[in-house]
């Protein structure tokens, strides 16, 4: 288990170092996540070294949000004062983001497929044409 903790916290620590050294405006955890992907991809870290701990952490990700959520009690007065705009904007905007992002993704995937299919058809046609030319040339020679 020590190895599992070492890898996860190692990536996080490296993330902290990178943030400190470069002043990059990203959280150390996101950089740590990208580092972990990189280390796994380059086989520096083996999957079984992090599998158990990462499964545990990911299964409980939601639970870790409870204390930051309780912090809402500190801002109840601000939230109460502008409750309607805050609730309406958050709910509607979240619904919009969900639907628009999903549709944009589906749309571009479909468009890419169409373009690929069109190119394929063009290629096939070109091939057929050149084949036809070859055939006609052969015929001419025969004549």
């Amino acid at each position, binding site marked *: 288990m020590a190895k599992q903790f070492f890898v*996860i916290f190692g990536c996080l620590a490296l993330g902290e170092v990178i943030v400190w050294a470069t002043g990059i405006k*990203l959280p150390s955890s996101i950089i740590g996540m990208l580092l972990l992907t990189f280390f796994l991809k380059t086989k520096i870290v083996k999957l079984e070294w992090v599998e158990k701990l990462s499964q545990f952490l*990911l299964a409980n990700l939601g*639970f870790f949000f409870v204390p*930051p959520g309780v912090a809402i*009690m500190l801002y109840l007065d601000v939230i109460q004062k502008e409750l309607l*705009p805050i609730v309406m904007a958050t*709910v509607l905007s*979240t619904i919009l983001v*969900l639907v628009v992002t999903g549709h944009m993704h589906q749309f571009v995937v479909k468009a890419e497929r169409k373009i690929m299919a069109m190119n394929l058809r063009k290629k096939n046609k070109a091939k057929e044409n050149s084949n036809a030319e070859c055939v006609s040339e052969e015929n001419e020679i025969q004549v």
Partner: protein
Amino acid sequence: MQQLFSNQYIILALTFAVFYYFRRLQYRTGWILLNPILIAIVLLIAYLKITGVSFEKFEESGSLIDFWLKPAVVALGVPLYLQFEAIKKLWLPIVLSQLVGCLVGIVSVVLIAKLFNASDVVIISMASKSVTTPIAMEVTQALGGIPSLTAAVVVITGILGAILGFKTLAMGHVNSPIARGLSMGTASHAVGASTAMGISNKYGAFASLGITLNGIFTALLTPTILRLLGFI
């Protein structure tokens, strides 16, 4: 008595108990409003209000839990690695949908809040609500909003995504599993990702991609968008 109410082990046991019980109840009833994160937050706030334990005192125990948020975000690198080939193949639709999702997220929250007469400081504090807390707070700080209000709105947005996410996607005819995973991460960061992870690893991988890309785009674009809309 007061000492007992703010005892770390008692607070931790209470938090685990509420979360466990309501997760089981949600599982059994299938009722989305019984979201264990939401209920645990509401009940704990009620507990603190009733017993008079201060938030600072609670945070001594709470920080033991939210300490694991950062390692958990690092762990999202595993599903990301497992789906690497699929991601590479789909990079164009992924990047384009993230860019559009980021724009829609910022512009819509700002304009809707304005429509309902929110004050400018609240509007600025809500602009980055869809992304993970540290990025969102950083953005708000830079723009002169209230970072802690941002943190509250970010958590609310996450829970909203967990509660409404998959229903909304089904009703909005977003059917591809990859598009659904992405949308969950884009709209409601790690809470959305953990909901997606509950369905399958593949959903989770694309959700973690959504968190990352929308986080980066939001950090880069929010100041410009707010300037163009005339809020700063």
